[in-house]
C-alpha cells in the first residue's frame, strides 16, 4: 500500500476517532469539575477512539465497494438483456421490413395498399430506433411507471 492510501485509510481515521473521544473525555472532566489536563485520563479514549475510527473507516469502505459492485452487476445485467432483446427482435423486424419493401416494389405510389404498407414500414422504423437505443445503454437510470419503475432508455444512453 502506498503512503497516501495508508494515511487516508489508517492514520486519518485513527486520529479523527482518537480526537473525538479525547474531546468527550475533556468535556466529561470539565463537567465533573476535574482537572482537564490530567494525561492518564486520555490514554484509553485515545486508543479506543483511534481503533474505533479505523474499524468504522474499514466497514464504510467495504459497504461503499459492495454498493458499487451491486450497481455494476445491475448495469451489466441490463446491457446483456438489451443485447439479447436487440438481436432477437431485429431478425423478425428485418423479415417484416423486407416483405413490406418487396410488396411496395410492385405497387404504385398512389395505391391505397402502398400507403398502408408504407405505414407499416414507418412503425418498423420506429421499433428499429428503439432497438438502436437499447444497443447504446450504458447507465442504470429508471423512471416511474404505474406502481413500479422501468428503465429510462433515453437517460440510460446519455
Amino acid at each position: 500500500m502506498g503512503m497516501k492510501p495508508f494515511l487516508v485509510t489508517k492514520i486519518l481515521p485513527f486520529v479523527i476517532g482518537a480526537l473525538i473521544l479525547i474531546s468527550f473525555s475533556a468535556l466529561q472532566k470539565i463537567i465533573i469539575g476535574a482537572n482537564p489536563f490530567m494525561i492518564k485520563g486520555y490514554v484509553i479514549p485515545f486508543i479506543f477512539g483511534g481503533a474505533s475510527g479505523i474499524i468504522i473507516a474499514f466497514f464504510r469502505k467495504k459497504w461503499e465497494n459492495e454498493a458499487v459492485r451491486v450497481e455494476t452487476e445491475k448495469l451489466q445485467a441490463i446491457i446483456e438483456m438489451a443485447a439479447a432483446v436487440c438481436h432477437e427482435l431485429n431478425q423478425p423486424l428485418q423479415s417484416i421490413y423486407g416483405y413490406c419493401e418487396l410488396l411496395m416494389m410492385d405497387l404504385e405510389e398512389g395505391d391505397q395498399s402502398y400507403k398502408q404498407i408504407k405505414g407499416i414500414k414507418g412503425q418498423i422504423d420506429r421499433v428499429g430506433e428503439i432497438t438502436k437505443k437499447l444497443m447504446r445503454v450504458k447507465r442504470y437510470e429508471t423512471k416511474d411507471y404505474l406502481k413500479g419503475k422501468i428503465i429510462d432508455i433515453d437517460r440510460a444512453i446519455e
Partner: protein
Amino acid sequence: MSEKKVLVVDDEEKIRDIFEQAFSKAGYVVRLAESAEEALEILKDDKIQVMFLDLDLPGMNGAELCKQIRKDLPMAIIHAVTGYSPLFEFSDYRDAGFDVCFNKPVKLAVLLKAAEEAFKKLDTWKKR
C-alpha cells in the same frame, strides 16, 4: 456481359428469401447458404466476389467465415449484416475482414446500393 453474382449467408429462411427476391429483381444471380460451412462449399467452385453475411450463424460464426473467405478471395467485397452491433465493436468487424457492416433491420435499397457499388469497385480494379 458476365453475370453478377452475390452470395447471401443467413440462417433465417425468411431473410434469405427476401434478399433473394430483392437481388434477383435487381438483376443479380443469387446464391444462398444457411451456414458458414455451406457457404464455403459454394465458394469452392463458384468464386463469388460480393457477399452478405449474417454474423450469428450455427457452427462457425460470420466473422470466422469472413476470415476463411479472405484467405482465398482477398479482393472480395464482404458485407456483414447483423442483428446486434454496438458501435464499439466496429473495429472487430474490420479485423475480421468485413468491408461494411449493416445493422438489421436494413433497407433493401441500402443493400442493393451496396451491391451496385461493390461491382463498380470490382470493375475498376479489373481495368487496372
